């Protein structure tokens, strides 16, 4: 079953075509890697898929619903969430608050109830507290719940961002270079975590990565883009031996 599909999406900035007729189909519970040299247009694709940019052309469907011209938060509600290449946490808030903010849509009380602190407020806040703590515990971050995000170690910040993305209960999780800046040990741990959450939450994962080891190690399918176009697609083994890919990475 297709969860997320993009058909011929194109993004032009002025005269520059950053992404040219890109196609994508993600099935349920898949783990797909999106790779390509610097400036190939990977992040632009992400931005289109998550509503940050509106594609110049093309169609994107999430769970059989078009998400073209939908705002990022609407797309989150429809079931796709993401992380950022350069970590974007709410730095002056605690880890727990970071997660609670993304849990927003599942807390059910209105502003008046919140300001006057009715019973509903206390009940819902208690539920949110428990659920978000559970999520942090999955990432072994329970002990950091009350630490300000900016004071967390780098690896924990990356993990917190993934936890936050999961808090909105997505069908598709998009990770933008989750291993950037990590050492091999941390990367290995991250690989395990990604695998684990894919199975635990039964979701589709799309990830952009530079670290070939990580991509080759966990992805079932890999898409390679260069100059905004797909140049290859296939299993890790197929990609490894694809001459176009080698050329793109190493030059002629």
């Amino acid at each position: 079953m297709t969860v997320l599909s993009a058909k011929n999406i194109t993004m032009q900035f002025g005269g520059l075509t950053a992404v040219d007729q890109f196609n994508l189909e993600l099935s349920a519970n898949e783990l797909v890697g999106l790779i390509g040299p610097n400036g190939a247009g990977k992040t632009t694709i992400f931005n289109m898929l998550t509503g940050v940019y509106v594609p110049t052309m093309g169609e994107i469907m999430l769970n059989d619903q078009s998400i073209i011209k939908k705002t990022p938060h609407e797309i989150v509600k429809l079931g796709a969430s993401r992380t950022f290449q350069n970590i974007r946490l709410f730095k002056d808030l605690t880890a727990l608050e970071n997660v609670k903010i993304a849990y927003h849509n599942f807390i059910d009380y209105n502003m008046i109830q919140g300001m006057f602190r009715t019973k509903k407020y206390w009940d819902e806040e208690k539920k949110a507290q428990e659920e978000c703590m559970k999520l942090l515990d999955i990432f072994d971050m329970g002990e950091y719940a009350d630490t300000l995000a900016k004071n967390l170690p780098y690896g924990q910040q990356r993990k917190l961002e993934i936890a936050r993305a999961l808090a909105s209960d997505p069908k598709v999780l998009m990770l933008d270079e989750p291993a950037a800046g990590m050492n091999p040990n941390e990367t290995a741990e991250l690989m395990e975590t990604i695998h684990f959450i894919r199975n635990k939450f039964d979701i589709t994962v799309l990830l952009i990565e530079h670290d070939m080891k990580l991509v080759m190690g966990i992805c079932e399918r890999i898409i390679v883009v260069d100059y905004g176009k797909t140049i290859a697609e296939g299993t890790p083994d197929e990609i490894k031996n694809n001459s176009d890919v080698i050329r793109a990475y190493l030059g002629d």
Partner: protein
Amino acid sequence: MNLFLQQLINGLNVGSIYALIAIGYTMVYGIIKLINFAHGEIMMFGAYFAFIAATSFHLPVWAVLLSSMVIMAIIGVAIEFVAYRPLRNAPRLSALITAIGVSLFLQNLALIIFKPDPKVMPKIFPETIYKLGEIEISSTTLITIGLSLFFMVLLDLYIRKTKQGRAMRAVSEDKDAAILMGINVNRTISLTFAVGSALGALGGVLYSVAYIQVYPTMGVMPGLKAFIAAVLGGIGIIPGAMLGGFIIGMVETMTKAYLSTTWADAIVFAILIIVLLFKPTGILGKNTREKV
């Protein structure tokens, strides 16, 4: 038609002064991202020094202008050093509050030193009225517009052609990169304050000559208008400030002439709001998208 041309000249006259003052706002903003609320007071003190130079020391015109500009350049640098430099890495709003504090301080200092009574600025420029058909232009108006334009061109050359000018542009573009390039950032910022304050002082002198008065709160309204002009043109962009100054001056005069005098200020603000809604970074501002 003649009436219209006459009003056009009125507008140019006000606009050129706003433009001069707006440059100071925009230069400081460009380089340290601070709205220097005290700029209106710099202008006011500039006018007072010119007043003193002209009445107590009877200096010739060029010396009146020059002394006021030099003194205010020094004071501008001093203000930056004492009040703004310690806050360079503080949250921007704190620096803004400091600027408001400096503005209040200077205003009340002037009130104590010079008393609230408006002083009448002597006519430091020779007074004649030129007739162009039905239109009358006083020499003061011509000199005001001429001097403003002269200094704007001079500033433009300075910024584009000299080493210090290039350093200013570099620092306002990217402070960290400028440091790496071996630019003395502190000195460049001081220089910016000096130039901005000197032009502000000139604006103050011209303003006080045109409206013949010098008083402690004289900087508030033109300061606010010039600030609006700077934002309208795209704050941080020097040609933008000039353009904004002329637009505000013109709009203000034309509104008073043809629409409503009571609503003139409201209309100026309304135009600013409308422009910003369509062009959120001002007329000459570049729309920068935050990188995701």
